[in-house]
């Protein structure tokens, strides 16, 4: 069967691949009713996602945009487009953050974050969207910015802050201001990243007030737009109340004052365009600061099979099984996958492949995790750590096996081995949840708590302590009131969706199955980044656990 499939592939695509032993076969029938119904369900979900994303991308809507334009300003996304090198990719993060979270519609949490190329260097770009509530910080806005900074720190990405924000959203101040991971952490991160040799650059296009004033002030180099950008600790009304001094905005914190008198800003731009061009100039002069990506060693070739088929392979019902190899073969270079321990612990798939030329160790689920599967995964993680090959987790896991047989077999200690290996792995981890991510399986498969460099979800993905079906059975056994079960079940189902997750920053965004290869490829390119050789003393310090060679602690045997 394999041989015949390979021949078919060879005839269709490229005869050179015909006898390659590692090219995965594909036995998918794209005309089967099952495939078609799965595909239709996924298509619908994607359409819904597209609509939501398109709406969020408009920010505060036409009226707010028009108001901004009428003041001679560029829209936040126009500033972003001008900043990025033309025709380069942009890996936007969590574009549906805060979706359906607050009583107000706060598209993208009022902040655009993502990784893009500026003057030939990958940078973390953080843009306030002033069309959304004046760019003020909701709790999720803070979380989104902190997450962007965390990614920047881990990858040594210079940060560009395009600032126009009124600061904390006052009604939410209790969830914005006081805690460890709140507003103050933004400046803590800026200070520490600067110390780690990761440049912090900002340009000020509107007001940047109170706590917000510290973004430009803590930047290594900044630009302000004249008659538009304003930086002050307290605005004119507050100043009048505090000291009786009467002063206008521009004299109190305008670009001319800050560039000629206070020295808070380093360059004065005539308009948004000039400010962005000047930021591009700054990034062009960053010298040896920050990390540099490593080019892949392998020539890149696309997968043999079409990524479009992923829709019909996976579908949207997490209870419907599929072979993870059919996903891998549509993501990796040349559909080549050298599988490790193929015939042992077969509910987990492990093996080596390349994506966009970068080597990667893949761990994917093909069912419930048993002891052998956990042990196999653990061994594979140790292999990748030793070889310094980044890990990609393709997640579709219902959890670890339960029952007396499993417990007697030591599933708890074997599962723990896998979790420990994941936690302490000495290589970057990337996680894509393509189906379910339930229970302790979430831990073993590098869930958010295990600090993968990136975690993306497919629109069909589900995440929760257990599947909703199991959950209601558990509920029945421990609770007496059946009327509550239905409500709880639907509530938990709602909370398990990818949209619910992405709105709360439990992931870095929902990606389409067809985007997976390129998104992961960009992620691997980022994971390859190292301090540039000319700046070892400053940026030689590792900013992550992986790469430090700390080892794994005590495995329970």
């Amino acid at each position, binding site marked *: 069967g394999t041989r015949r499939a390979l021949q078919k592939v060879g005839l269709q695509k490229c005869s050179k691949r015909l006898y390659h032993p590692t090219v995965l076969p594909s036995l998918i029938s794209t005309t089967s009713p099952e495939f078609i119904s799965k595909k239709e369900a996924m298509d619908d979900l994607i359409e819904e996602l597209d609509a939501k994303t398109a709406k969020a991308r408009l920010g505060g809507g036409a009226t707010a945009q028009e108001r901004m334009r009428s003041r001679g300003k560029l829209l936040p996304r126009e500033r972003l487009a001008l900043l990025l090198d033309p025709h*380069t990719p*942009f890996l936007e993060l969590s574009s549906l953050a805060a979706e359906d979270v607050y009583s107000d519609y706060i598209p993208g949490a009022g902040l655009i974050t993502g990784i893009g*190329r500026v003057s030939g260097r*990958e940078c973390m770009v953080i843009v306030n969207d002033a069309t959304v509530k004046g760019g003020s910080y909701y709790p999720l806005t803070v979380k989104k910015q902190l997450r962007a900074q965390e990614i920047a720190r881990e990858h040594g990405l210079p940060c560009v802050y395009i600032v126009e924000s009124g600061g904390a959203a006052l009604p939410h101040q209790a969830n914005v201001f006081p805690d460890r991971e709140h507003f103050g952490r933004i400046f803590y991160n800026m200070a520490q990243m600067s110390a780690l040799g990761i440049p912090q650059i900002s340009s000020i296009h509107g007001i940047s007030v109170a706590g917000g004033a510290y973004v430009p002030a803590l930047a290594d180099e900044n630009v302000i737009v004249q008659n538009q950008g304003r930086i002050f600790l307290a605005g004119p009304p507050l100043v009048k109340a505090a000291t009786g001094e009467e002063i206008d905005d521009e004299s109190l914190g305008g670009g001319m004052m800050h560039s000629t008198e206070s020295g808070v800003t380093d360059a004065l731009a005539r308009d948004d365009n000039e400010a962005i061009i000047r930021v591009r100039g700054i990034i062009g002069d960053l010298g040896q600061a920050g990390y540099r990506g490593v*080019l892949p060693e392998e020539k*890149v070739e696309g997968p043999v099979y079409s990524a479009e088929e992923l829709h019909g392979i996976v579908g949207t019902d997490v209870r419907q099984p599929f072979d993870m190899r059919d996903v891998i073969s549509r993501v990796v270079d040349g559909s080549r996958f050298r599988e490790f321990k193929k015939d042992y612990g077969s509910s987990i798939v492990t093996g080596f492949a390349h994506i966009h030329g970068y080597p990667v160790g893949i761990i994917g689920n093909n069912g419930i995790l048993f002891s052998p599967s956990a042990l196999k995964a653990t061994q594979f993680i140790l292999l990748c750590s030793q070889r310094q090959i980044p890990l990609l987790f393709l997640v579709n896991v219902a959890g670890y096996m339960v029952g007396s047989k499993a417990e007697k077999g030591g599933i708890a200690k074997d599962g723990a081995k896998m979790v420990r290996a994941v936690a302490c792995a000495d290589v970057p981890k990337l996680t894509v949840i393509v189906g379910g991510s339930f229970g302790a399986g979430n831990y073993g498969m590098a869930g958010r708590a295990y600090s993968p460099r990136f975690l993306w979800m497919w629109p069909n993905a589900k995440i929760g302590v257990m599947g909703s079906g199991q959950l209601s059975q558990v509920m029945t056994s421990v609770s007496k009131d059946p009327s509550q079960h239905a409500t709880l079940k639907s509530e938990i189902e709602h909370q398990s969706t990818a949209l619910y997750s992405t709105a709360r920053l439990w992931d870095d965004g929902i990606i389409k199955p067809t985007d997976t290869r*390129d998104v992961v490829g960009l992620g691997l390119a980022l994971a390859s980044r190292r301090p540039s050789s000319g700046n070892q003393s400053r940026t030689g310090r590792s900013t992550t656990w992986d790469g430090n060679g700390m080892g794994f602690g005590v495995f329970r045997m």
Partner: protein
Amino acid sequence: PRVLPGSPRKPHFDKILVANRGEIACRVIRTARKLGIRCVAVYSEADHDALHVKMADEAYCIGPAPSSESYLKMDKIIEVCHLSGAQAVHPGYGFLSENAKFAERLSEEGIVFIGPPASAIISMGSKSESKNIMTSAGVPCVPGYHGDNQNPEFLFEQATEIGFPVLIKAIHGGGGKGMRTVIEATPDAFYEALTSAKRESLKSFGNDTVLVEKYIQRPRHVEVQIFADSMGGAISLWERDCSVQRRNQKIIEEAPAPGLSVELRESLSAKAVAAARAVKYVGAGTVEFIFDNDTQDFYFMEMNTRLQVEHPVTEMVTGLDLVEWQLEVAAGNPLSLDQSSVPLVGHAFEARIYAENPRNNFLPDSGQLLYLSTPTPTLTLPQSYKPSPTLSSSNVESVAPTLVSYESVPPSVRLEQGFAQGSQIGVYYDPMIAKLIVHGKDRSEALRMLRKALDEYHVVGVSTNVEFLRTLAGNQAFIDAELETGFIPKHFHELFPPVTESAPEVLAQTALFVTLRDYPKQQASTAQSPWTSLVSRRFGGDVYERMIHLQDDAFTGEAQPRAVRIKSVAAGLFDVEVKTSSGTPVKFYGVSAKLISPTSLSITLNDKLSTIIIVSQPPPPFIPASLSHNTMERLHVFSGGRKTTLVIPTPKWLLMQGGDVLSAAAGTGALKAPMPSLVVEVRVKVGDRVEKGQGVIVLESMKTETVLRAGISGIVKAIGCKNGEMVQEGKELVNIEADEET
């Protein structure tokens, strides 16, 4: 006298010197090379890398760029003749070609001047003398006064006798200088024109003697190519029509002149041969006639004692290599054909491609040929025509074209050029870039060839008359051969249709060119980071969009730049939306585009596949440095036989910055050279007081004088140039310190 079979022929020279540059030097070298004659080129410092230098067997630098210090330096050229052992000098046209003193000097030195004897040059150099000779030889001349009496009242009397309108012309004049038409038969009008013609003549030629002639209202310029040998043989190689002129200079020439009867052609040729004989002419010469469209009379105008620019049209219809004939005659051989065996086959055109701006009164332009792409020539030298086997009677006495029919010849395209891409044009020398010559079996075939060839002639770097010539070649009156010297003013509105806003298609094409050109550079040798290879990649339903603003360079109706929105739908596939001045955007969906070379774009727009040439011209260096590299970049688009120039406009902030810099500079009173030019006169010295608007420096560029004036009143602080110096664009020439109170 025909050469008898077996009669001894004198050998050609072994080595000649070509005392010229540009296309004519290349043209001479080409024939010499064909005949195995070695060529010596001379060049000025500015022509170090010129084509004629590369083509020659040896080359000598004879001085700095200005022609008075190089190509006009007789001593230097004669020295090079001795140094290189050249036996003869071909002067080309212009420079020393009609300089009798040069011809004399050469013969004193024992070097052959490939041209007529000095005496013929002298006789024909003076307009009044030449007319006297012609009149006595029975060649009709335009009624007029050519005498020495320059008394204005006397001249007015003469004018009245000749009958108005009249033409006042400097006797040493040429190129339209020192020439005035007087329509009104009043003394005032006459005296005013006379004074101004004399003033200009004195300034240009150092002599203010003028002649007065009848002015012909609908004249044609018809000239006859003649050839004479040193044994007294002289024949006509038929006529050319060069009526369509601008600034009194030829722009398009054809042979034969359309609409001439056999008798008229016979008569013209006979008179031209008589003219040549009258001055004992030797070599190639051109007898120019004014042909009166209304009366069908023709009058002798002047005789040019050189090979003319437009000689190729004669070569094409006769199949004769005129340079080869010049060499034969100079070597002392008789003409190899008699009048009756001179072929006249088909019809030929020559279009002169100039660096000039037709819409700005054809003012010359100068600059570098940044990009040059020409139609592919089908031949480089004329090919002789073989009479078809059917014999016909040969009437030796007849001067009419022979009735022998020739084997049918395929249409051909010839290109005479002296410059390659990268050359500088028009700063020191004539701004002619090239000559495009076509030949067809009849006038309409030749014109069709001409239009096609002009469509394929692409120049970037200087403005050219290519598009004007293309319009002219397609003009109905021109097609109908309604020729007269006033053709351009008469048909001005058809020849210069209003410039319209560029079509949305052109904007879409240009924007896609910019898009594809700006793709991140991919190194083919190594594996790519996805951060460069994933061109324009966006995720989660996002689509990469880019706005490109373009401004019409020529169109002045609406100064606003127009926005083109490019959506990258898939690899090589785009949706394009072009904003129009009417408000409704024009949309093109699913446009596929690909760069097939750095200057050509293959594009399928509205299901039509085409290849468009687009050449980028970077902004001039004085534009303030900007990080956005394509600000003020010019994009020259050759699409569907039309050239459109679009500019990527300067962003507002950069204009503001430029304004700031300029206003800061204005206060300093520094005057800079606006273009590469020659300093003719420095009118001030350090310490002088100057008033705002006072002329300070006189520059000359492209034979046109420009006066630089003080921008402020003040004291001259420094002078950065001296008389006669060549200065580069942007050089500070004078610095004026402003008065305290300003």
